[in-house]
Structures are given as C-alpha cells and as structure tokens.
C-alpha cells in the first residue's frame, strides 16, 4: 500500500510543467493551435506509453497522470491526449508516433465529434463493424460549434479508410481517465486564480476573500477537487492493471473530476463577477476547458448512469 506518486512520476510532471510554463503561456492560447508540441515531443512525451518496440518507454497511464494534470493546469491546446494516450493503443505501430511527428485525433464510441481533427494526420474512427484509420488526405471535416475555442470539434466524413484490428476499449478507457486528470488540473488552476483574485479585489473596504460566503465557496471547491483526484488515480491503476472494476472506476473518475471542474468554473465566475465574462481575461480559456472536457469522452450524466448500473448490479468490489 503506497497510494501516492513516486518521485519519478512527480519529476516527469515537473519537467512537463516547466516546458508548458515556457512554451504555453496564456498568450499562446490566443495565437497558437499546438503550442509546446515540439518541446513535448523533444521530451519524448508522445512515446511514454508506447512499448519499446515502437521506440517508446512502455510506461503505464498511472506514471504520466501527474503530467496530465499539468497539461490541464496549463490549458494546453491540441490533440495531446488523443496522440499520446489513445493512439498508442490504436495505432501503436504507426511510423514516428513516438516522435510526435504524427498528430492523431479519434472518434470512438461515446464521442460525438473528433477534437482538433483539423490538426490530425490520422483519425481513428470507430465504425459499426470495427475501427477505421483515416488519413488527412481522405477526410472531410465540418467544424461544429462548441464552448471551447482551443478544442474545436469536427464532424468526420471520409471516402477511403484502412481497417484496423483490435478494440477501442483500452484506448477509450485511457483517454477518459487522461481527460479526468486534465479536468483535475483545470479545476486546480481555476481555484488558484480565483483565490488570487479574491485576495486583491476589494469591495466594502475589504478583500472579497475575507467575506465568509466567498471563503466557503472556495473551500468547497478545494474539497471537491481534493476528493475527486484519488478517484482518478485509482481509475488509472485499475486500467493499467486491467482490473475487473476498470470501467466502473473510469466512470467514477470522469464524473467526479467533471463535476469538480464545473463547480470550480462556476465559483470562479461568481468570485470574479462581470470581469470573468470578458474576452480580455485569460480565465475564459480555463472555463471553456472545464466545460468542454466535462462533456468529452462521455458526459457526467452518462458516466453517472454507468456507475449506477454497476453499483446496483452489486459491483461493490473495492480495491484490491
């Protein structure tokens, strides 16, 4: 029993954080579609989950969870989860996947649209009779309206696609947990920004953060995030270990992380007031990310329903 991250796992996260601080500042969210991609590739980030025979490190999802929280915290745009977490379990053999030279989007069961598909060299689409690999040359994309300017959604049509063996399940589970980890990072950043603002914004002659009603709303966010995070870690362990409870645990993680991030977004707006609504303030990028990721890879409602079904079906097994 050793439920916490190792120094190596935290060191990886710290490296990613430094890279993102340097190469994905808030300004980049306004100007770039794939900031810090090259630098993450240089770190070997896109090979972390790939097996050695594909030039990867063969790590588990659990190993990169803290790094994924940092990616959420930085609100990093681009199909990072799709390329670094989903693709290895769908097209792990694809040339140069580990190098980050190939950009991947996915449209798997439960997804409505393919995120960042306009940047993708390859799109993996789940058809009724199996997986399809679509190259950017043969795809027709239609942009769909959404909440998140930095995570555009696309309808995917294609004339030609290569059949792919295997199942979407391992990739989908991992992409969902990775999204939950990002949501934890998004929520932590929204909380930090709101706390910082509540310390400096004064009304009625005092910082608004000194009013008990503001304190308690922010405390509730801290509690929600602090108790959602362990569910995400546990889901990663269950997925890495192919535990029988994996799907239940994935749904528990995604629902809890989504709700924590949505609560953090609501409180952030309440604390900021009207200025929180402005295009000028960077806050809006994190708000949008909280909303878009809470709907990605299954809404909170979908995962709550799965959870309900599992628990009512007497799946009360704890871990281990």
């Amino acid at each position, binding site marked *: 029993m050793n439920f916490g991250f190792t120094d190596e796992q935290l060191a990886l996260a710290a490296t990613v954080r430094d890279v993102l601080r340097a190469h994905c500042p808030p300004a980049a969210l306004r100007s770039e579609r794939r900031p810090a991609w090259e630098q993450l590739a240089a770190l070997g980030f896109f090979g972390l989950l790939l097996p050695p025979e594909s030039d990867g490190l063969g790590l588990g999802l659990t190993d990169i969870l803290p790094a994924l929280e940092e990616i959420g915290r930085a609100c990093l745009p681009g199909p990072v989860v799709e390329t670094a977490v989903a693709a290895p379990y769908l097209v792990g053999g694809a040339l140069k996947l580990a190098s980050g030279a190939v950009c991947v989007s996915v449209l798997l069961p439960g997804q409505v649209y393919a995120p960042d598909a306009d940047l993708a060299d390859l799109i993996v689409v789940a058809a009724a009779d199996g997986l399809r690999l679509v190259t950017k040359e043969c795809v027709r994309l239609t942009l769909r309206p959404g909440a998140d300017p930095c995570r555009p959604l696309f309808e995917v049509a294609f004339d030609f696609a290569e059949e792919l063996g295997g199942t979407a399940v391992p990739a989908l589970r991992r992409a969902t947990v990775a999204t939950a980890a990002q949501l934890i990072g998004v929520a932590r950043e929204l909380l930090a920004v709101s706390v910082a603002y509540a310390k400096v914004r004064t009304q009625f002659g005092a910082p608004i953060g000194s009013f008990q009603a503001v304190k308690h709303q922010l405390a509730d966010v801290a509690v929600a995030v602090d108790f959602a995070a362990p569910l995400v870690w546990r889901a990663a362990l269950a997925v890495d270990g192919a535990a029988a409870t994996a799907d239940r645990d994935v749904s528990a993680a995604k629902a809890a992380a989504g709700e924590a991030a949505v609560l953090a977004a609501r409180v952030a707006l309440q604390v900021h007031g009207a200025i929180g609504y402005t295009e000028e303030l960077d806050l809006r990028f994190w708000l949008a990310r909280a909303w878009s990721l809470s709907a990605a890879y299954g809404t909170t409602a979908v995962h709550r329903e799965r959870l309900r079904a599992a628990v*009512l079906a007497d799946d009360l097994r704890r871990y281990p």
Partner: protein
Amino acid sequence: MSGNHCSSYQACARLVYVDLDFSPAEQGFRAEVRDWLSAHVPESLPSMDTPEGFAAHRSWEALLAQARLSVVSWPEEYGGRGASLTEWLIFEEEYWAAGAPTRVTQNGIFLLGPSLMRHGTPEQRSRWLPRMARGDDVWAQAWSEPEAGSDLAALTSRAEPASGGWRLYGHKTWSSRAAYATHGFGLFRTSGTRHRGLTYFLFPLADVAVRPIAQLDGLPGFAELHFDGVFADESMVLGEVGEGWRVAMATTSSERGLTLRSPGRFLATADRLVALARSSGDPALADRAARCWVEAEAYRLHTFGTARRLMAGAEIGSAASMGKVFWSELDLRMHALAMELLGERAGETPWLDGFLFSLAGPIYAGTNEIQRNIVAERVLGLPR
C-alpha cells in the same frame, strides 16, 4: 496493439507504480481480524447510554483487548500491536463491515490517547494507557462550557494552586459518555486569557458533580460537569502548566484527522445504503446511493494517501478540515437518503438513530463553518 503492449509489461517497471495493493502481512492481518470478529461480534448491544448497555460495551472492549484488537496501532507495552496506519485502517474497515459495536472508549483512545503519547510522562503513559486499552477506565472529554462551544478559547473554568496540586472550579458541558465514564480530561485556566494560560487536567469523575443531559432519544449521552474545588495532584496535569492549548490541539487535530472517523464506518454505511436503494427500484434514489458509495470510496482512497504522508513523517494539519467537511456531510447525505427510502419504517431500523447522529457530524469536533474557515484561511491562504 494493446496485445503487444501488454506483452512488454516488464518495461513498465521503469517507474515504481503507485500502489493500492496490500502486502501479504497486511492481508494476513485483515484475515485474522475478519475471522476474530465473525466469531465474536455480538448480535446487538443495548445503548451505551444505559447502565446495562454501558456495562455490555465495556465488556466488549475487554474482549477486544484480550485479542489485542482494542488499540492495534498502539505500542505493545500499552496493549497494542504497533500496527501501521494502513493496518489500523484495515482494522477499521473490518470492524465496521462486521457491524461491531460503537466504541465506548473512543474519546479516551482517540482524543486523550494521542495527547498522552505525545505529552505524557512515562509514568502517566504506563499508568493510564493500558487501563484505557482494556476499558478498565472509560474517559469522557470535557472541552465545552456553556459560553465556550465553537469558541473554545473563551472557556472560564479555572485551576487554583493548592498544596501538592490544584483545585478545579467551573462548569463544563456536552461531555459525551460522562454519565457513566470513570475519568475525564479537559482544559482549565491557570493564568492568562484566551489561548494562553490554559492547563490540561485529568480527573476521576467520582470527585465531580455530574448532571446527565438527556438527548433527543431521552438517554443521557451528554453530561454537565460541575467543579467546586475538585483536587488534582501534579500527576494529573498533562504537559506543561499553561501549555494546555497546545496539548489539546494535538488532540483536536487528530480528532479532525484520521482517528476520529476512519473510512471503514462510511464504507459499511454506503454498502448498506446501496442494498436499501437496490430494493427500492427508484432510479433517482439509486443514483444518489451510487454517488454516496463512490464518495465513501473517495474518502477511503484519500485517507490512504493521507496515511502514506503521515507514515512518511508529514503532519495532516489543516488538510484534516477538508476531511471533516467531506465525511460529515457524506454521512448526513447517506442517512437522509435512507430516511427517504425507509419512510415510516425507519424507526424499526438502526438508520433512524444513525440519522440523528449523522446530523451532529457537521457540529461536533469543530463545526463545519469553522472547518471551512480553516480550509479557506490556512489551506488556501485567504485573509482572516
């Protein structure tokens, strides 16, 4: 692809995994506890707030102690097994899953015990801890006073120097179990104001005027304690004179932390709640039950993380306040849902008493309003 991937699983060992597996020793301990409990847990005991119920709970503690299961995390010399925090959490999971009786000794074991270990003299520790572990002495806490509830530092009870010790004066209230307990512990003012000049005293309740207070159920779960010159010799002072606040805070931080409410109790409640919801067939209620079950699991996992940090030498500190808010409101949600599920049949089940008790969760051990202030000010750093 995933096939290939798993074949190269060895390579994953490059980083040490986060680990939720229990060691063989921990699993063996769990099995021993489970077997012993399944053999010894009584059908059900009368309320510990009745004379016969109190006696029955005390005998249960003695039986636990014989199996060295009453204070597993304590050193062997005091009746424990020197169990790790993880093993203690395992014990709690098994204890509550087995539906074993509420611990009549809990205020002594969980509130006074840690302070004795940290601040007691060797004499005090060997004099009191083994008796506490066996239930020979049952300790009642005496924190609150009529005008000092949430605002503990406002207490006015005092201790005056007397030859060979002190004389205690004042009026304490909301002292749980005091109607039947043998000893008490609390803070008395020896000088100063507010947090300064308080001293931590132990005292036999035989010397104190105890006035039981009947609760909603009519039973005396609380008592008032009136001190008019009760004598306490030097050996009954815990820690330095005037340092009582620090000694007590060690206690209340453990009270808010792991020891007061381990996950085991809520995991057991959640399992029973899910069974109840399953039989109701209302999906909206089932959804609330499933949510509670996952939240109990979240509290368990969160606690394993805390235990790991504590075993690595860290302090819980203010983060304990987050746990207090989380478990107390989860417990209330679970019991409120059970009330809706059971309706007028609730009184025929343990859920009704559980509901009344769960409503106290956001009040005792520091109200949740205070806890949220602590989270906001000490964890998030917002201005006072």
